[in-house]
């Protein structure tokens, strides 16, 4: 069996938030040995709600720190900093989300780390980055989501039709912070790739930048003269469609997909209108098409329309609840979850990774640290 992709690489993460932890989680799941460095009270992530029922175990901590080991380090004391320095000296990558203003006192600033660990890849992960006018700004998920643009643009489609006067709604969980974490993992591995030529270096990640990167098309459209908003951005037809027993997502971008959809609908007379033969015509009459589609889907079950539609190459998906994802046969086949020991909560399935290597899922080294 092949080695885990990052076998032999050592990572230290000093994380109080989701972004830094998610960066380390990805590297750990890819095979790096990852140490979570915590203060005496433990990482603040351990106190992040919600908690697993009947426990004081944070769901975010348990999910994000699975596969890591943990060590306690007192960075406020000289002895503690020396011990921590010895850990960094044995490591390849250090990921840190300490606010910039607090770093020097803890020996975690860019200059100190670079002077003591010339080959270390030092990754800073902050809401607005370590450089720039907003480097000191505080940012929780909802703030960086709105600072990066996507916050202003959600929701779309059915929700905006139902609740036109409501404020924008956030994406569940820590979407933008996890973009920061992914950018940090990419930055760490890219800098590590160049280490033979360049030695260690400082990688400065901003969750705002990362959120903006994944929302880049809105900036592209601005260059075309179009300022997007959450009402205009809705698909002209399709989107979230209610069935008799749940919701499906429907999106037909290509002609053959429209042809498949018409066949799925039973080749109704309205769909034979020559004006609907091309995508421009369908775009103009999207609201009318939606009325027909919604009426047809509302009388049918999700599984029925998804199975029949996908056979006709119509992009259709069930809106899965978390329980349905956990029970899904496809994900069981793919090994998306691995049962691990979660302290105080027992054996539980924890999500592993969206990556397979050479036909096999990755393997978590274990559950979260006690």
């Amino acid at each position, binding site marked *: 069996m*092949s*080695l885990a*992709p990052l076998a*032999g690489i050592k990572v230290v993460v000093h994380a109080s938030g989701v972004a830094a932890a998610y960066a380390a989680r990805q590297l750990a799941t*890819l095979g790096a040995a990852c140490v979570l460095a915590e203060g005496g009270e433990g990482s603040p992530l351990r106190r992040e709600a919600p908690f697993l029922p009947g426990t004081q175990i944070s*769901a975010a901590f348990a999910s994000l720190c699975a596969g890591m080991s943990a060590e306690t380090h007192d960075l406020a004391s000289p002895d503690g900093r020396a011990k921590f320095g010895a850990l960094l000296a044995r490591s390849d990558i250090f990921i840190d989300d300490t606010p910039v203003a607090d770093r020097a006192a803890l020996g975690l600033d*860019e200059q100190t780390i670079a002077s003591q660990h010339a080959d270390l890849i030092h990754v800073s992960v902050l809401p607005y*980055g370590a*450089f*720039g006018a*907003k480097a000191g700004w*505080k940012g*929780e*998920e*909802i703030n*960086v989501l*709105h*600072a990066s*643009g*996507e916050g202003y643009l959600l*929701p779309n*489609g059915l929700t905006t039709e139902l609740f036109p006067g409501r*404020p*924008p*709604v956030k*994406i*569940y*969980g820590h979407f933008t912070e996890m*973009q920061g974490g992914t950018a940090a993992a990419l930055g760490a591995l890219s800098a590590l*790739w160049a280490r033979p030529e360049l030695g260690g*270096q400082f990688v400065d990640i901003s969750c*705002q930048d990362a959120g*903006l*990167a*994944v929302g880049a*098309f809105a900036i*592209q*459209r601005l260059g*075309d003269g*179009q*300022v*997007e908003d959450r009402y205009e951005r809705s698909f002209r037809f*399709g989107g979230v469609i209610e069935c008799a027993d749940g919701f499906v*997502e429907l*999106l037909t971008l*290509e002609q053959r997909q429209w042809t498949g959809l018409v066949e799925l609908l039973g080749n109704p007379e309205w769909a034979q209108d020559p004006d609907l033969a091309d*995508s*421009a015509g*369908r775009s103009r009459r999207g609201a009318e098409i939606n009325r027909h589609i919604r009426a047809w889907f509302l009388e049918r079950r999700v599984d029925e329309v998804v199975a029949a539609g996908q056979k006709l190459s119509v992009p259709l*998906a069930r809106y*899965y609840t978390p329980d349905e*994802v956990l029970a899904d*046969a496809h*994900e069981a086949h*793919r090994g998306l979850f691995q049962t691990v020991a979660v302290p105080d909560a027992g054996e*539980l*399935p924890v999500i592993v*990774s*969206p990556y*397979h290597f050479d036909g096999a899922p990755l393997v978590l080294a274990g559950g979260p640290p006690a």
Partner: protein
Amino acid sequence: MKPLAAIRVADFTVHNAGPFATHLLSQLGAEIIKIESAMRPDAFRKPHPVYGREGPATFDQVSATKLSVRINLKKPEGVALAKRLVAVSDVAAESFRAGVLARLGLGYEALKAVKPDIVLLSVSSCGQDGPDSHFAGYAPLFGAWGGLSDLTGFADGPPVEMRHVMDHTCGMHAAVALMAALHRRRATGEGAHVDVAAREVASMLCGEALLLSAAGGEPRRMGNAAEGLGPHGVFACMGEERWLSIAVRSDAELTKLEDIVGGLSDEAITAWTCTRDANEAAAILQAAGIAAHASWTTPEIAADPHLRARRAIVEVNEPGGSTRAAVGVPMRLSKGPEVGIHRGTPQLGEDEDYVYGELLGIGRNERCALEDAEVIY
């Protein structure tokens, strides 16, 4: 120095998710050779009126900095030409439906035969195996399958579809996996077939909810609320469609917020925000140590000095000589300040002199013959 300067990618990806992965790598220095044909150009070179637009507005943002060649993969000679390109590459990347690349004669085993340590990146909606692996999908479907979209929305409303951010999220994750495979190749000499499932990327982003559900909890749509934080939400400010996001985590922040706005209820906060400019209100709260930021429109983002100083927003040149704002690679490297976009979107086949001439050593006569036979087409 751009960190990935020595990496070459034969890029068969189309649409968004796969191209965004290689777009990130290109900004970090990898040489990305995008493969299309006049018969089957990337669908995102074409307009998509389902979005209500007539122009190919989305292509540039995932194609800048790449090189472009034409190869007609419907012809055996085209497949052979593609293999010649793969043989001089470190990575091949694709985002067809599972099985399509193999049916073209370019599956992992076929590519290994011409380049034993090749890393093949496959990005798809549902992965390369499993009962749903043949399913077609786009970004909103990834979020639906993965559970993230069902959890997003108002408590009394339907789920909310994820848009192209879901494609790009998948692409950035794919870039991470690809780099991991390259590190393993460096350590062991082994290539890899890296399989990234977009729906599983969506699941990763709600991993805590999935664990909570597995433990007997009931995660659900909760609008703008966040457990453990409060006040927490989006509040109306002065002007049409102007909003301020506020998130309070500690008791100290709570006290400061109350001092500033005169109360802690949503009504009290809105009474304060609705008479203020969103950016000014954010600055007041940040000065007091409270996490707040205006809900920014794209013009505000494009003009922001902080984002420009970080090169998260950059100016790129248009063919006519004008410039426009574009989004850079989301990182700053102390020893690679030049990372980012360095050239615009390639025209179809723009770089064939370099790729076919210099890189593959194809002479003029052979190249003309391939063009006449509609292999380079």
